[in-house]
């Protein structure tokens, strides 16, 4: 069953076509990977989905929520897309750096919270209950990521690996249906990457669908159920990891060039 469908998405920046007629369908419960060389348009595709850069052409269809009919979410502002249950992390960490881990995660509870603007002026018994409920969810999320001890630490002063965790925790606290991860393993060491794999699996076990961009090939091949390969904004291949690994187009465009660079 499809959860998210991109139909003929095209995004241009001036003369440059960053995403060119992209089609993909993410099924419910999948871990879906998007790969491609640097500058291929992967992050732009994410930005088209999440409303940061609305596409010029094509449509984004969302099958989530309680309704059975798909909703077109093309061009919705980011906060509305998030409220639909599509929440993302960023390639470069974007946390609220002066605030503590717990407060960062609490931001994920924002649109789940039932408080209105006037509760900013004065709480009511109802809003205090809502506040408590959301903090409980933060506590639960802290425990899931095993960072309860650090709850009151300002995130800006923490190790990179932990900041990555907090970013995922923030997204997860919002109880998304689709979690979009933009290079979740970037900058992580081997043991942190192993931990990430476990985390992603256990997020999927909660019934959350995952769409991710990743450069670490081993990680993508072990983790994902289905892969789309993009180059120059165009889809050049899609399929199961095994099939992608042996696709000559992919090897030429992506895997081959990585060997040449040889890190």
């Amino acid at each position, binding site marked *: 069953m499809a959860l998210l469908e991109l139909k003929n998405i095209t995004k241009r920046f001036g003369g440059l076509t960053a995403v060119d007629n992209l089609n993909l369908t993410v099924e419910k419960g999948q871990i879906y990977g998007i790969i491609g060389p640097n500058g291929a348009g992967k992050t732009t595709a994410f930005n088209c989905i999440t409303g940061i850069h609305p596409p010029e052409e094509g449509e984004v269809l969302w099958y989530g929520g309680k309704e059975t009919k798909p909703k077109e979410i093309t061009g919705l502002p980011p906060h509305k897309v998030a409220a639909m249950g599509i929440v993302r992390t960023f390639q470069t960490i974007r946390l609220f750096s002066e605030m503590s881990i717990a407060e960062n995660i609490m931001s994920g509870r924002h649109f789940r919270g039932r408080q209105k603007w006037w509760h900013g002026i004065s709480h009511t018994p109802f809003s205090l209950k809502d506040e408590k409920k959301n903090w409980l969810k933060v506590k639960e999320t802290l425990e899931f990521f095993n960072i309860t*001890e650090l709850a009151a630490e300002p995130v800006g002063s923490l190790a990179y690996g932990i900041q990555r965790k907090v970013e995922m925790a923030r997204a997860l606290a919002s109880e998304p249906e689709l979690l979009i991860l933009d290079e979740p393993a970037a900058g992580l060491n081997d043991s942190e990457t192993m931990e990430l794999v476990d985390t992603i699996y256990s997020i999927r076990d909660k019934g959350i669908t995952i769409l991710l961009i990743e450069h670490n090939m081993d990680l993508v091949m072990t983790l994902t159920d289905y892969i789309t390969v993009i180059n120059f904004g165009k889809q050049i291949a899609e399929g199961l990891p095994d099939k992608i690994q042996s696709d000559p187009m992919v090897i030429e465009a992506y895997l081959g060039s990585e060997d040449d660079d040889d890190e």
Partner: protein
Amino acid sequence: MKILNKKIGFSIFIMAILLYPAIADSKWLAIGSTFLIFSVVGLSEDIILGKGGMFNMGHALFFGMGAYAAAILNKSFGLPILYSIPFAILIPALFGIVLAGPIIHLRGDYLLVSTIGLNIVFIQMLENDLFGLTGGPNGIFGLDTPTLFGFELSSPAAIYYMGVIVLLITFYIMANLDRSKPGRALHYLRLDDLAAQSIGINTRGYKIFAFGLGAGLAGLAGVLFAIQYSAVSPEAFNFMQSVLFFSIVLVGGSSLPGILMGTFVMFILPEIFRDFATWRYFIFGFAMILAMVLRPEGIFPARFGKIPNWISKKGIKDGAS
């Protein structure tokens, strides 16, 4: 420890402002009232500038709008001045919302220049006696003294205690903001607007909320200002005042002690050291520069980590202000 110190400090401060009239004569009471009124304005600017991170350099506009709303309703429409309070809150709040709408998406310096423009337009309207209501450059004077249940609240102590009540209401709102969804949303959008949007926060809506709330509180302080002087005039709300409100938040820091200290330094010390004439501004100018160089986040910066202590065993590292 720290949180305990803060609670003790706060209690002492409340006791001090409650007991102050016992030792102050009428001149010092007037200075005390000024402190209370401008603290409220400073705190209301903190909601917009300190929490929301929006460079509002026209805050005197909302302060003045509240004062003028009370004065006009009293003088031209004969409404008792205390009854004008709801209008003096709602009119600036609505203007804040309407004016903020089209400029709120501007960033930093652009927003700053726009708000300066709004303040200048406001002063021009007042000076040109708009609709024959604002009294031109001289303003409006001879306002009625407030009466409550037949008592005249005209003594300096009565005015002072009205200021205390309004300041306590403001404290309540500030504390409430710190522990509620809308208040946190302002911190989130200040620290990273895009991340805030991507996690489902309608940043534009909350920015407008901040402007409305800040403007409403400033308007409330404006009524007290009108009551204290039983007059209003344009120069009390000009661009220079806005600069001072802006500086309070920047120099003091976005926290209760920061704003209170900032207000004291910017508005009260110049009153106390009147004898030193223009020298005081010379010294204050340098003090401001020094403060910004040494403590760019303000003297008492905002503190975070305001989380329920049952979340983590280590609990609150640093409590609420």
